[in-house]
C-alpha cells in the first residue's frame, strides 16, 4: 500500500481492516439498507413524500428546533463550561457531575419529568401560564427537551479546551491594552470556536434523532408540533414502510450535509491555526 507510512507502531493493516469492517457493520450497512428500502419508491416517489405538507412541516420542526436548541446550548453551555473550568467554589464537582445527567437519564424519564414541570399545572409551567406563555405541548416544548438533551455535548467539548487555554495569552492581551471584554471577544472566544462547533454539531445531531423526551413534552400535533422521528413511527404503525424509510432517508441526507459543512469549517480552521 503506497499510502502506508513507516511507523514504530505495527498493525496498520489490521487496524484499518478492523475500522472498515466495524464501520461497515455498525454504520454503513444499516444506512445502505435504509437507502435501498426507500429506493424502491424511485426518485419520483421520494419527491412525492418529501413534498407532502405534513412531512415538510415535521422536517422543518425537527431541523429548526435542533438548530435552535444547539444554538442556545452553545451560548449557555459555553458559560457553564467557563464557570466549571475557571472558578473554584464549593460544590463545583457536584455541579460538574450534574452536567452529565442528560446523558445518563433514559430519555422517556427526562421527557415525563420535563412535561410535569412545564405543564400548566407544573412548577415552571404554572407561573408561565399565568403570564400567557405555554411551553409544554407546543413547539417550544420540543426546544426545551432538545436543550436539555444537548447541553452536556457543548459543556463536555468546550470545558477541556478552556482548561487548556494559556493564561499567558490573556495577560499578553491585557498588557497590550485590551479590556477584559476585548480579551474575551477577540482572544478567548476565537480559540473556542472549533470546540464550540464540535459541540454544536454533536448537540444538533443528537437533537435531530431525539424521540423519547420530545414526544412527552410536545403536543405532537401534525403540522404544529410533530417531529420527523415521530412521523416515522406513525407511518410504521400504519405499516407504511416505504414512507417511513423515505422520511428517514431525507433526514439522513439533510443531517449529512449539515454535519459535513460543520466538519469542513473545522478542518479549515485547523489548517489555518494549526490546532483543533
Amino acid at each position: 500500500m503506497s499510502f502506508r507510512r513507516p511507523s514504530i507502531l505495527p498493525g496498520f493493516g489490521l487496524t484499518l481492516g478492523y475500522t472498515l469492517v466495524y464501520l461497515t457493520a455498525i454504520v454503513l450497512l444499516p444506512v445502505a439498507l435504509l437507502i435501498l428500502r426507500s429506493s424502491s419508491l424511485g426518485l419520483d416517489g421520494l419527491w412525492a413524500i418529501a413534498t407532502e405538507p405534513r412531512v415538510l412541516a415535521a422536517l422543518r420542526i425537527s431541523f429548526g428546533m435542533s438548530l435552535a436548541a444547539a444554538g442556545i446550548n452553545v451560548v449557555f453551555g459555553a458559560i457553564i463550561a467557563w464557570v466549571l473550568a475557571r472558578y473554584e467554589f464549593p460544590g463545583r464537582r457536584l455541579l460538574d457531575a450534574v452536567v452529565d445527567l442528560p446523558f445518563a437519564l433514559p430519555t422517556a424519564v427526562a421527557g415525563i419529568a420535563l412535561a410535569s414541570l412545564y405543564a400548566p399545572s407544573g412548577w415552571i409551567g404554572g407561573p408561565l401560564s399565568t403570564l400567557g406563555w405555554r411551553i409544554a405541548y407546543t413547539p417550544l416544548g420540543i426546544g426545551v427537551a432538545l436543550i436539555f438533551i444537548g447541553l452536556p455535548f457543548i459543556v463536555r467539548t468546550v470545558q477541556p479546551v478552556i482548561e487548556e487555554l494559556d493564561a499567558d495569552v490573556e495577560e499578553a492581551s491585557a498588557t497590550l491594552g485590551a479590556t477584559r471584554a476585548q480579551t474575551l471577544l477577540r482572544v478567548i472566544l476565537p480559540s473556542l470556536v472549533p470546540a464550540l462547533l464540535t459541540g454544536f454539531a454533536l448537540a444538533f445531531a443528537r437533537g435531530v434523532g431525539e424521540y423519547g423526551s420530545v414526544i412527552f413534552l410536545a403536543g405532537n400535533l401534525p403540522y404544529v408540533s410533530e417531529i420527523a422521528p415521530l412521523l416515522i413511527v406513525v407511518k410504521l404503525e400504519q405499516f407504511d414502510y416505504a414512507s417511513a424509510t423515505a422520511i428517514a432517508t431525507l433526514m439522513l441526507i439533510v443531517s449529512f450535509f449539515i454535519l459535513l459543512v460543520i466538519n469542513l469549517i473545522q478542518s479549515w480552521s485547523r489548517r489555518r491555526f494549526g490546532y483543533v
Partner: protein
Amino acid sequence: MQIRVVDIVKQFDPRAKGPVLDQINLNVVGGELLALLGPSGSGKTTLLRIIAGLDQPTGGKVFFGEEDASGLRVQERRVGFVFQNYALFKHLTLEENIAFGLTVRDRATRPPKAEIRRRALELLDLVQLSGLGKRYPAQLSGGQRQRVALARALAVEPRVLLLDEPFGALDAKVRRDLRLWLRELHDRTGHTTLFVTHDQDEALELADRVAVLSQGRIEQIGSPDEIYDHPATAFVHGFIGESSALRVNAREGRLFIGDRPLSIPLREERPGWGRLFIRPQDVVIGEKGLSETGRPPIEAEVLSLWRSGPTRRAELALAGEAGRIEIDAPVATPLTPGEKVPLHFKRGTFYLETPAA
C-alpha cells in the same frame, strides 16, 4: 523612561516562612538594559510581573519616571511584556498579532486602518520577518515567534520593555543569535528594558547592569564585570561563574587551610571560619617538594579528570575538612587519579560566615 521600584514586598501565603519578595529597591536608568538574574524561586519573575501590573504587591510602590504607577491597571501602564512561551494569538496572522495593541484602542486614540497596517509592516521589518505578515504563528519557528512577540509588544509604543525569560524555550544556537539581535535592537530603539533570566551567560553578555536575586532579595547590582570580578556576597560568587568553596579559617590577618597559611590577602581583619571561593583557573599545580615559604605545600588528592572544552578539569580533595576543589588541569600536565599534588592558590575571595544570631 526610568523605572523605580520602592520597598516592594510580596507575600503569596501569609503562613509561608518568608516573603517571595522582601523589600526590593531597584532603579532602572532610562535606556538601560538590566537583567534580573537568579535561580528559580528567587522572585525575579514575580518582580517583573509586579512592575507590569500583572501581579499586585503586598507593599511598596512602582514608579515610571516621576509617575506613581502602583495604582494603574495593566492596561494603563503601557508596558511591553514578552512571555517565555511567546503567548501569541494563534487565530491571528502575524500582522494582526502585531497590530492587536493598536486595534483594541478606543476610537479617539486608534490610528486609522492604513496607519495601523503601515506600523505593523514596519515592525515586521524591524524583527526581520518582512513578507511573513500573512502567516499564522503555528507556521513559524520558536525564534521567529519570539521576535513576533517582541514586535507586538513594541507596537503599542511602551514606556518600558519587560521580558520574562524571553529565550528560555529556545535551543542554544537560536538563543545566542537572538541575544545578539536583541542587543542590537535595544541599541537602536533605546527602550528601557528589564529582562528576567536564570542564564548567567545571557545576563552577563547582554545586560548593561545585572541584578542578582536570591530568596526575594537583591544580592548585588552592578555591571557584568563588577558582578563577575567582585561578587559582593558568597551567594553571588557561588552563582556566577564556576567556583569551588573551601572551608577555611581566618586568624592573625591570614587565611589557613588546616595549619597551612595561604598567600591570598584578606579584605577584613575579623577572625573566624568562612568560605573561600576559588575559580578553576586560579589554582595551579605546583612543583613537587618545593614551596616559596619553605614549608611543605598544600597537597590534594586527584579524584577524577575530565575534558572541558579547550582544557581539562580535575576534581581534587584537600586534606582535612577543607573540602573538594575543581581546577583547570593543563592537558600537558600528566595526572592520575589517586595521585597527590601540591596546589598553589593564585586568587580567591573569602566570605566570613556570619554566626547564626
